[in-house]
């Protein structure tokens, strides 16, 4: 696996004809498709480091390859934090089982389920610099905590798993350590198996699921109606991994690719063609 330590180095890898299969610290491998044999494996973890923290504005800028743990520590020195799933909430094993910690870029690209309702990555991500398939670098958003200047491409890229462009630098809004919305209580489930699927549901669907999956969930978050499910709760169907017992109103956040409606799949294809027509990034991911 190649681990570039400068943007120029990364651009040089891209200049090679082979497509890139990109990861951060590779902590979420089991949620992803298999890399195609011809692809160059690239880790973004070499492009790491906090660039600036503005405590008075509660805004931080960092390289996308920065490990989340490191980023949180840097923020904590300024009395700030990102309100994301943390070890202190889940217990170490659970944390790793759920595909955490990884890097900032991985958190965004994989759209990790968040713990505070209304404070998901799309709200916290204020801006980003990305690398495009043709080697150019483009910026979206700004340091403003609120902006409607043009299309929010940086927010749209969240959850696209590096199929359209790669996060290089990101600008996020942080929250004070001591304050913020009420914390979500995480309940540890019975099974300690690795997390292999994450479902979000409506509140009534969540109640329903708790009744059906009480013994096999790894973690459940009532405030965001998220369920982290382990293997025995799942039924495989090719890339369509779904809960063995149907959960009302459930949407599979992970693994991606499950149950994407046809019309949306058509749009995904159009997006791929518009952003990465040469299919330079992560071919095969999300079926693209």
């Amino acid at each position: 696996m190649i681990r570039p330590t400068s943007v120029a180095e990364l651009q040089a890898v891209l200049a090679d004809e082979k497509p890139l299969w990109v990861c951060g610290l590779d902590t979420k491998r089991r949620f992803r498709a298999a890399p195609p044999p011809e692809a160059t494996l690239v880790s973004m973890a070499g492009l790491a480091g906090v660039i600036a923290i503005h405590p008075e504005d509660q805004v931080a800028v960092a390289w996308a390859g920065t490990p989340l743990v490191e980023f949180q520590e840097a923020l904590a020195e300024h009395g700030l934090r990102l309100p994301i799933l943390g070890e202190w909430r889940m217990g170490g094993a659970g944390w790793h089982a759920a595909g955490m910690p990884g890097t900032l870029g991985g958190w965004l690209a994989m759209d990790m389920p968040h713990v505070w309702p209304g404070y998901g990555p799309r709200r916290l991500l204020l801006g980003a610099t990305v690398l495009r398939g043709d080697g150019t670098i483009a910026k979206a958003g700004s340091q403003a905590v609120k902006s409607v200047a043009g299309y929010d491409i940086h927010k749209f890229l969240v959850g696209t798993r590096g199929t359209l462009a790669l996060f290089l630098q990101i600008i996020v809004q942080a929250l004070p350590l001591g304050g913020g919305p009420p914390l979500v209580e995480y309940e540890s489930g019975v099974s300690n198996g690795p997390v292999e699927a994450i479902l979000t549901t409506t509140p009534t669907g969540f109640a329903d699921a708790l009744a059906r999956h009480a013994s096999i969930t790894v973690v459940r978050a009532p405030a965001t109606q998220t369920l982290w499910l382990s293997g025995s709760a799942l039924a495989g169907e090719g890339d369509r991994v779904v809960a063995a017992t149907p959960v009302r109103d459930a949407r599979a956040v992970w693994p991606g690719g499950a149950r994407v409606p046809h019309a949306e799949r058509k749009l995904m294809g159009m997006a791929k063609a518009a952003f990465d027509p040469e299919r330079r990034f992560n071919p095969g991911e999300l079926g693209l």
Partner: protein
Amino acid sequence: MPTRDALVDAMERLVGADAVLSQPGALKAYDCDAYSLDRATPRVVVLPSSREQVRDIVRWCLDADVPFTPRGAGTGLSGGAMDALGGVILSSKRLNRILDIDVPNRRLWAQAGAVNLHLTQAVEADRLHFAPDPSSQSVCTLGGNIAENSGGPHTLKYGVTAQHILALTLVDPDGEIITLEAGGPGFDFVSLVVGSEGTLGIVTDAWVRLTPTPEAVRTALIAFPTVAGASQAVAAIIASGVIPAALEMMDRQILAALRAAFGLDYPEGTDALLLVECDGCDADEVDAEMAVAASIANDQGALQVQIAHTRAERAALWTARKKGIGAMGWIAPTIITHDGVIPRSKLPEMLEFVATVAEEHGLMVANLFHAGDGNLHPCIAFDDRDPAQVEAVIEAGEKILRRCIELGGSVSGEHGIGVEKIDLLQEMFTADDLRLQADAKRIFNKGGLCNACKVLPNQKGCLEHRRRWRGVAT
């Protein structure tokens, strides 16, 4: 392009004569939205009443190469609902029903033309509300909120419209009706469509998130002798960990307008008013938050801190905020409300800059804004019958917004790019940045017919349109 008669005939066939406006007076009323410096009269206005009618209209326009522009209540402030090329205006005002309310799951399904406030009124009894609260909320539509990613004073805590849309149905670039869900397993196209200013398809209806209405609300109106003191209080309140529901500032000129228009009075020597609202489910916690805010204000030299507990007292304190822009309208023939965002810490510096620019151009500027977000709304008074003043207003506005860019902010926090800020968007982003955005537009809007000439103009007629209106008074 088909003839006007052919266009009207076709529309009447699709939706019936009573849903098509083609008389000159009727069309003239659709010249512009709340941004009135740029105007163009549509050739026809259509008021469909179903998703299928919207689809039929869009398909017909795609086939006939006719530009089409979605429009809700027309309260937008950047010309987004204006039909720049003189095609079809698709009004959502007969798609205004609430289709379903799901209280246990805190969601509501409404058509695009439903009024923002009506959504809240429909679920008030269940102690829920629709959180985005732009100042036009009593008239603006859900579709417009989605297009502009609308904010409002309370979005500081609860988030802008993007955080409150669970799913939406739109007529896509091929004229198909598709439903997109937020946070689903594929790409989150909802995050792209929300805030796209109606350029990425016509949204017909959406499921929105309902937010529990806080049990306890406390509002404080704080008078400061200096803008710097008020700005520092804002930063200190945010840094304390308190997330107020709203944090709004009004400057001396707004207070002068309020005095002239409505006889409202504030303590002697007040240079800035700060409105702080805290809310939550526990009255003691909210009181504690308010106590923190009040003590910070006192540390920053506040002249007076008034705290309201009842609904009526709160409404009285909100008067200054809610009537401020109107008061400017009372004392001036025309006003234009600008919109820019800067990092919060740059507030005092920025306000000083705004005052200098106003002086240079001989204009009266007042500021009333979402301080917690760093979202400025300089409001300039002028007479739009005087071309020289119009010119000065445009120049001053651009200077202010350029400064926002220099300070690391944005040229728009709420009002959008529309036609107003197309040039400034080009200054905020490089050609490569804009190409990234153009690629997104290409997914949904290949021919550029859907809300032509907005955000990123990609139609040949747009340049000509811009030359025609720019700087020209009524």
